[in-house]
């Protein structure tokens, strides 16, 4: 039985030893197979990467550390994330400013898979870092929305 105060949800971190005092949150995004239906939602605040883009984003970060410009780095990140997230020109405040976070392309579902008070993962959560219940839920969602692409987005809780 899940503890009443637990938000761990479906997460099974790869280690019991915390690597950070910043919490972790993991979201499941179901990218619609068509742009003709779905919801446009904001990228999770302080998102590190998604399971499907992490390696490419890490390579871009390495390139940035090795000298490419910040502008070029951001351009690479935008290209890498573009199957799911695009720069925000969709939602703006009543002051007329667009919010900094990227926004999703149309999704059929978005759901918090879990949130931990501390950080336990060196990288980002993948399917393998879900509990058995989490994997069953993920598999069910994948079957429920045929043709959709599933992403796990890991974000920091700062």
């Amino acid at each position, binding site marked *: 039985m*899940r503890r*009443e*105060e*637990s*938000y761990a*949800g*479906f997460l099974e971190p790869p280690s019991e030893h915390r690597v950070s005092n910043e*919490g972790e*949150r993991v*979201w*499941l995004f179901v990218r*619609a*197979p*068509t*742009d*003709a*239906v*779905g*919801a*446009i*939602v*904001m990228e*999770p*605040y*302080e998102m590190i990467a998604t399971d499907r883009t992490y390696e490419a984003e890490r390579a871009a970060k390495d390139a940035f550390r090795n000298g490419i410009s910040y502008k070029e780095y951001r351009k690479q990140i935008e290209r890498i994330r573009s199957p799911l997230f*695009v*720069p925000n*020109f*969709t*939602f*703006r*405040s*009543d002051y*007329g400013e667009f919010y900094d976070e990227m*926004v999703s*392309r*149309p999704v*059929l*579902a*978005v*759901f*918090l898979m879990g*949130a*931990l*008070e501390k950080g336990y993962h060196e990288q980002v959560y993948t399917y393998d870092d879900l509990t058995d219940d989490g994997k069953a*839920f993920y598999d069910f969602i994948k*079957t*429920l*929305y*045929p*043709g*959709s692409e599933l992403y796990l987005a890991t*974000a920091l*809780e*700062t």
Partner: protein
Amino acid sequence: MLQEMDAPTQLIRERMVDFPNDGVGRDGTLVWLLAYAERLLLDSRPDAYIPLEITTHLLFPVDRFVGLDLTWEQHQKRYTELLKSIETEPMLRTNYLTAYELAAVDTGRPHIDISTIEHPQLTRPLMIVPHLYGAFLIGISSVSYADWHCTTRDLTEHGQAFYERVKRIFPSTKLGLLTLRGTEPLVPLVLKSDTDDA
């Protein structure tokens, strides 16, 4: 609008919503299952650990709102009151919301509200569904209906099972069923190439 009725079966494998048989229009209808973080709705137990940023929200133009099962009764009652008031209060006719929309806002909080967030291509205000652990599109119909919104009674066996499953994942989850007009994305996605900045 999506192409005819094969679209729902393409997008959602299991039929989760029993839509009525008597459609009245061709705008289409969407049903979203909403999972609210009830603790944030109630703002209770301020001493309890609640991770920050564990919720998301949905935004859509106010004229697409048909109903939310959690607020439907109050919404309809308020709508009736407003319709009566319009006869004696002409100012209501010039409000930037229709009586139906105004009634939805008046009775929606904390589950749904008018948003200060704007969309560059839309002239109508956006409604916001805040404090969500998540949302799932569970029903699509290519027709629209008169005076119908989805409730738990309209869920199929598959729909009921999924509803119960989602409810058990996080503490203090409160579920809602949101019915919207139209099948297009909740707001148009604006790409950089659509803007003057491109």
